[in-house]
């Protein structure tokens, strides 16, 4: 039985997921003690988005975002099950939208949209899940449209910046023959 993803795809996505985990490991400790929801995504999203864009551009198939998310979720389940759930939801949402609108990750625009949904989804779902689970006045103060929308928009803007940088790198890697050429 032929697999939807090739061995090359799995290895590449696994390596990019590893680098994304490492980027989180290097950037999140800088803000870990600041109890503002979404601040961790704010510092890691622009850098993670570069590798996210590389993985999508190399594999090009719908389902890649979910695969990255599942792999990262397994690693992040060491920290929190909620964190893992939030990553998977972000990946599935990105794939669903791209599957319907663009059909693949071949174009730079599809990767930008996927990055915005994936990282924006993390913040939105993360704030919502975190505050709902912890509850109390903390939740009542934060579950308002403005704090959630504001933080989500900032992270989306930074993620788009990261994906844009990743897309530029993809062009360089295509020239170097490391990535599939556009037909």
């Amino acid at each position, binding site marked *: 039985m032929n697999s939807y993803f090739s061995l090359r795809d799995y290895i*590449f996505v696994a390596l990019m997921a590893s*680098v994304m985990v490492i980027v989180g490991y290097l950037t999140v400790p800088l803000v870990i003690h600041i109890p503002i929801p979404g601040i961790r995504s704010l510092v890691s999203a622009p*850098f993670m988005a570069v590798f996210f864009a590389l993985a999508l551009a190399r594999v090009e198939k719908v389902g890649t975002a979910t*695969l990255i998310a599942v792999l990262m979720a397994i690693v992040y389940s060491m920290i*929190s099950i909620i964190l893992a759930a939030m990553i998977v939801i972000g990946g599935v949402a990105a794939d669903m939208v791209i599957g319907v609108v663009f059909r693949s990750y071949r174009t730079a625009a599809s990767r930008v949209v996927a990055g915005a949904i994936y990282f924006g989804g993390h913040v939105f779902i993360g704030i919502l899940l975190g505050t709902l689970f912890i509850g109390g006045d*903390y939740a009542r103060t934060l579950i308002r449209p403005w704090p959630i929308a504001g933080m989500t928009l900032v992270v989306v803007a930074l993620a788009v910046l990261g994906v844009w940088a990743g897309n530029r790198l993809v062009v360089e890697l295509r020239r170097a023959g490391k990535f599939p050429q556009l037909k």
Partner: protein
Amino acid sequence: MWVREVHPLVKILAAALLTAVGVLLRRPGSLAILVIIVLFLGWQGGLRPSRRMGVGIVIMLLSFGLVNMAFGTQPMDILRNLLRLAVLFLTGPVFTLTVSPRKLVQSLRRSPLPDGLNIALLVIWRFIPVLLREARQIQEAARLRGLRLVPGQLRLAFRSVVMPLCFQSVSFADHITVALEVRGFSLQHSPSIMPGPGIRWEDILFMILTVFLPLAVLVGERILCFG
């Protein structure tokens, strides 16, 4: 250290269930029982947090408590929120840090997951330390050239840290794929006939502690108003 012998998939399921029960419990007493169960399992599994990690956890909980206080939350509610946060953040690490990667891989190979996903997980497990070392070396080299991670130097940080890491990881991916392909590895046939771990008495004891006891606490809290 019988906790280390428990089937890894049983641990993952138990972690999800404990987290769910932690979310459903409302009373600090009930949540404290859950925290004690998780800490006991971690201690039994030989986990001893370093001083730095302990200080980090205390600072995180304290800052969370202070933010709650700033929002005018009642002391009992703050305690409940802190205990719930402790359940959410301790369960995952305690359960996964007591799993050996070899056992996890054996269990995953016996699970209905696609072979490619198992290989990808193996690659992640093996290459996170390698790539982390690589990233640190790149970061160190950039620092020696005068780079400081401040907002004004973000562009420079991208060029001197992120770009080299990109090229290095793309190159790693190509090498690993070629290495696997020349060794005849394919997704169509399984490369191993090693059997996975079965269910043992440790698993049953673990299930009693992590499934039945938390469920009993939940029932006790809701029906008997305990905690």
